C-alpha cells in the first residue's frame, strides 16, 4: 500500500492537467484510499502515468543479432554492476535484456511493445522478454510478408486469410500484428523490393502491396484486435516516399491504423541530393483523419544500430555506408537486416531526418495521435527519449540545435518556422496516455481507479532533459522500483496477449501448407502458453474471449 501526496498530477486520459491530487494504490492498482502503508510526499513534484513505448525492438532474433554485431559499443557503454540480488548488464545501442528493463524503468517507462516478432522464433522472443525485468510487455507478429497468408489474398480468399492471421497470432502468443513493407520483404527473398502500391509483387500475378494493406487492416478490425494494424509502409527511408505513404494512408481510409515511425516515410525529393522534408503534407493528412495514430520514429544524432524487418533497405544502407551488415531471412515469414549507423548533423540526409521527426511531432496537432518513439534502436536508443522531450518543450533549444546543421538545409526543412512548444500535459499524452489508448490497454497510461499503478514522479527542473532522464520515483504495479536514481526492486513484468476467435478447422487447413514451407514440426510450432511468464489476456473488441 502506497499513498502519493501533494504532487501535481498530469493524467490526460482523465482530463487532469496539473492539479494537486493524492494517489492511492494497493495490490498493483489504483484504489480510492488506503489505510497505513508508505506515504511518498510528492509536494512540488510532477506526477505522470508510467511511459508506454508503442514501438520498440528490445527482444528477439533481430536485436540479439545486433548485440552480437556491436561488441565495440558494449565496451564503451553504460554498464550495470552486479549486486547481490541484481543481474549485471550493458546498455548502449542494443542493451542486454536485464539492462533494457533497468534503463526503461530508470526513465519512468513501464510498458513496452516489441514491434516485430517472427512466429518461427517467437519462443526466443518470449524467452528474452522474460529476462527483461520491471516493465510489462506486448508483442506484435510480423504478417505482411507471410507467404501462406499472401497466397490467400492472392486467391481472393479473404475469410481464410483472416483465419490464418488469427492462427498465427495465437501460435506466437502475441498481442497483434505488424505489417512491414507489405510484399517488399517477400520480394527481397529474391533480392528485389516492392515500391509501388499498385504493382503486383515479385512472384505474384495479382497481389499488390495496396491490397495487402487494405485487407490486413480489415482483418485486424474483423478480428477485433485491441491494437489496429501496425504498419511500416513501403519505401522506407527513400527520397520522395511521401507519395507512397499518402497512397498507403488512402488505402486505409475509414479503418483504424497505426503508422509506425512516420519520420522515415515523409520525404520529398528525387534522390539523396534533393531529399527534403514533406512532413507538412503528412501532418495535414493526420490532422484531417483523427482515427489513425502514428509514432515519430525520431532520429537523434549519434551512433546507433539499425535493425528492421525491411531487408532490402538494409542492404542499401550497407552499400551506402560500407559498414557491417547482418541479415537474417526467416522462412515463409519475414526478414531482418542489421547495419550500424551514425547520424551526423553535417550529413544533409541525416539533418533532414532529424528535423522531420520533430516536425511531425510538432505539426500533428493532437498528441493523442502522434507518440514519442525513435523506433529504437533505428533512429536512436530509447534511453535518449528525454532529449526528444527537451526538443519538443523548448523552441529556443531547437533553434540552437538547428545552427549545427549545414547551410544547404535551408528550404529542405520546416523546423525553423515552428514555434510550438509541448506542455507537460501534451508530453504525458504523447509518452503514455496516447500510446496506451492506441495499443488498446485501458489499464495503462492513466491514473484512474482500477488502473495499473505505474507512476513516474519527477522533481521539477529547469533542464527538461535532466528532469525526464532522472525521475525521483518510479512505481511499477504499486511497487517503488526507482528511487533517487537507484534501482530498488526488479520485479518481473507481465506479458499481455490475445486469443482471437479462430475457426477450429484452421489447423487442418494450415498443416499441409505449413509442411510445404517450414522445416519444423507443425505441432512444435506454436509457443506453449506455459512458456509465457506472467501471461495476461486482453480481450478482443466486440467479442468475448473464446
Amino acid at each position, binding site marked *: 500500500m502506497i499513498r502519493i501526496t501533494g504532487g501535481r498530477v498530469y493524467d490526460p486520459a482523465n482530463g487532469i492537467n496539473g492539479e494537486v491530487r493524492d494517489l492511492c494504490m494497493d495490490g498493483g492498482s489504483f484504489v480510492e484510499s488506503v489505510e497505513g502503508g508508505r506515504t511518498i510526499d510528492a509536494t512540488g513534484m510532477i506526477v505522470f502515468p508510467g511511459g508506454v513505448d508503442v514501438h520498440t525492438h528490445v527482444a528477439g532474433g533481430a536485436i540479439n543479432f545486433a548485440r552480437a554485431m556491436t561488441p565495440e559499443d558494449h565496451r564503451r557503454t553504460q554498464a550495470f554492476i552486479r549486486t547481490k540480488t541484481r543481474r549485471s548488464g550493458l546498455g548502449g545501442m542494443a542493451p542486454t535484456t536485464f539492462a533494457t528493463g533497468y534503463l526503461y524503468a530508470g526513465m519512468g517507462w513501464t510498458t513496452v511493445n516489441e514491434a516485430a516478432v517472427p512466429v518461427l522464433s517467437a519462443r526466443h522472443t518470449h524467452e528474452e522478454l522474460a529476462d527483461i525485468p520491471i516493465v510489462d510487455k506486448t508483442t506484435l507478429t510480423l504478417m505482411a510478408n507471410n507467404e501462406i497468408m499472401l497466397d490467400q489474398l492472392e486467391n481472393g480468399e479473404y475469410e481464410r486469410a483472416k483465419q490464418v492471421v488469427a492462427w498465427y497470432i495465437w501460435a506466437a502468443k502475441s498481442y497483434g500484428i505488424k505489417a512491414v513493407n507489405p510484399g517488399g520483404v517477400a520480394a527481397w*527473398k529474391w533480392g528485389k523490393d516492392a515500391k509501388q502500391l499498385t504493382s503486383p509483387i515479385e512472384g505474384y500475378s495479382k497481389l499488390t502491396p495496396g491490397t495487402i494493406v487494405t485487407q490486413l487492416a480489415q482483418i485486424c478490425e474483423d478480428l477485433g484486435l485491441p491494437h489496429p494494424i501496425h504498419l511500416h509502409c513501403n519505401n522506407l527511408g527513400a527520397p520522395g516516399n511521401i507519395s507512397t505513404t499518402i497512397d498507403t494512408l488512402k488505402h486505409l481510409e475509414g479503418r483504424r491504423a497505426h503508422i509506425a515511425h512516420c519520420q522515415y516515410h515523409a520525404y520529398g525529393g528525387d534522390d539523396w541530393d534533393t531529399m527534403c522534408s514533406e512532413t507538412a503534407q503528412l501532418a495535414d493528412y493526420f490532422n484531417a483523419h483523427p482515427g489513425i495514430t502514428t509514432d515519430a520514429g525520431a532520429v537523434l544524432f549519434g551512433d546507433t544500430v539499425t535493425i528492421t524487418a525491411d531487408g532490402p533497405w538494409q542492404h542499401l544502407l550497407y552499400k551506402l555506408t560500407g559498414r557491417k*551488415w547482418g541479415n537474417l531471412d526467416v522462412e515463409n515469414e519475414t526478414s531482418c537486416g542489421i547495419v550500424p549507423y551514425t547520424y551526423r548533423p553535417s550529413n544533409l540526409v541525416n539533418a533532414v531526418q532529424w528535423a522531420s521527426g520533430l516536425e511531425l511531432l510538432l505539426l500533428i496537432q493532437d498528441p493523442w495521435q502522434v507518440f514519442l518513439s525513435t523506433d529504437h534502436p533505428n533512429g536512436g536508443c530509447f534511453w535518449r527519449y528525454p532529449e526528444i522531450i527537451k526538443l519538443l518543450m523548448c523552441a529556443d533549444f531547437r533553434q540552437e540545435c538547428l545552427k549545427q546543421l549545414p547551410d544547404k538545409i535551408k528550404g529542405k526543412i520546416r523546423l525553423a518556422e515552428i514555434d510550438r512548444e509541448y506542455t507537460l500535459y501534451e508530453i504525458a499524452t504523447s509518452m503514455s496516455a496516447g500510446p496506451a489508448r492506441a495499443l488498446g490497454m485501458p489499464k495503462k497510461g492513466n491514473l484512474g481507479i482500477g488502473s495499473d499503478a505505474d507512476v513516474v514522479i519527477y522533481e521539477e527542473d529547469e533542464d527538461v532533459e535532466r528532469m525526464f532522464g532522472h525521475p525521483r520515483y518510479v512505481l511499477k504495479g504499486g511497487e517503488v522500483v526507482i528511487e533517487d536514481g537507484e534501482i530498488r526492486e526488479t520485479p518481473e513484468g507481465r506479458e499481455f496477449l490475445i486469443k482471437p476467435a479462430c475457426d477450429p478447422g484452421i489447423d487442418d487447413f494450415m498443416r499441409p501448407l505449413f509442411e510445404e514451407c517450414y522445416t519444423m514440426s507443425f505441432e512444435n510450432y506454436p509457443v506453449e502458453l506455459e512458456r509465457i511468464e506472467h501471461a495476461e489476456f486482453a480481450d478482443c473488441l466486440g467479442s468475448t474471449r473464446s
Partner: protein
Amino acid sequence: MGGKVSCTLGEVKQRADFIVYWGGNPAECHPRHFTKYTLMQKSKFLPRGRKDRTMVLVDIRETKSAKASDIFLQVRPGKDFELITILRALIKDQNVSDEAIADTGLTREVLDDLVQRMKSAKFGCMFFGMGLSMTRGKHMNSAALLTLAAEMNAFTKFVAMPMRGHGNVTGADVMMRWQTGYPFGITFNRGYPRYNPGEFSTVDVLVRGDCDAAFIIGADPGGTMPQPAIDHLKRIPTIVLDPHVTHTSKLARVHITTAPQGIAAPGTAYRMDEVPLPLKPPLKSPYPTDEYVVRRINEAIMAKPFWLPDGSQPQMLTAQV
C-alpha cells in the same frame, strides 16, 4: 566491413538453387541435412527438388558427402582462406594470376565456372563446417566465407551459415548474447560482462593457467583439449555435471550425474539457424536435471557472502579512455 548474412533453414529448403558445403561433411556429421533442409526437398519455387539445385562441395579430401555433390572442389590443405579471398577478387572482376590460383589446388577454368554459377544462381547458400573454422586461420576463415556471401548480394541473393555441431551450442550462444551482449569468451570479474576471445576463451585460459576453479557442464574438455589445458584442470578444483562419468569427471574434484537433455530433461534447444525448439523427454531419469543442479548451486552460493564491495563502479569502459 563485410557482415553476416544468413537465413533459417526453411528458406534454403524453399529457395536455394545453389548450395555450397565448405569444409563440412554432412553425409556423416549431419546426416539429415541434405534430405530435410537442403538438397532433396521440393518446393513451389523448386518443384523438381534435387534436379533444380546445384551442390558444390569444397574440402581437402573426398568425403562421403562428395557423392551427393554435383561439383567437388578439392582445395589444398590450409589454402581455404586464400581460395575464398581469390573468389572475393574474382567476383569483382579483379585479376588473379594463374599461379596463385594453381597454388590452391584448383584451376582458373574451375573457378571461373564456379563464379559464373554463383552469380547466376537465384538464391545461393554456403554452409561451412569445422574443416574451415577449426583449421589454420580459424575465425578468419569463417569471416572470409561470411564476407564472400555478403558481397555476393551485389549480384544475387546469397547467404551463409555455420554447420554447428554439438546439440545446443547455438542456444548457449544466443542466450549469452541477450544476457551479456557477447556470444562467448566473457568475464564478469569486474561485476559486468567483458569480452575478449583469445583472452577469456577457455583453451587459452586453461593453457595459460589463468583460472583457479572450473565448472564444466555439457562438455568433455578432458577428452578434447590440448594436454596443457587438461593438466591445468587437474591442478585446480574442477566440477563436472554430465549424464556420464567423462574423461573430465575422472580428473575432477566433484562430479554430479544429471539427466540427459531431450531424453530425460525437458526444456529448449536451438537449431543451427537459431530457431528454438521444445524438447519432449520420454524417460524419467533417476538423476536430476542440469537446470535443477545449477540452480541449487546458485542458491548455495547466494547464501554465502557477496564478493563485490558496495559502490563498485565500472572502470574498464572505453568511453572513459
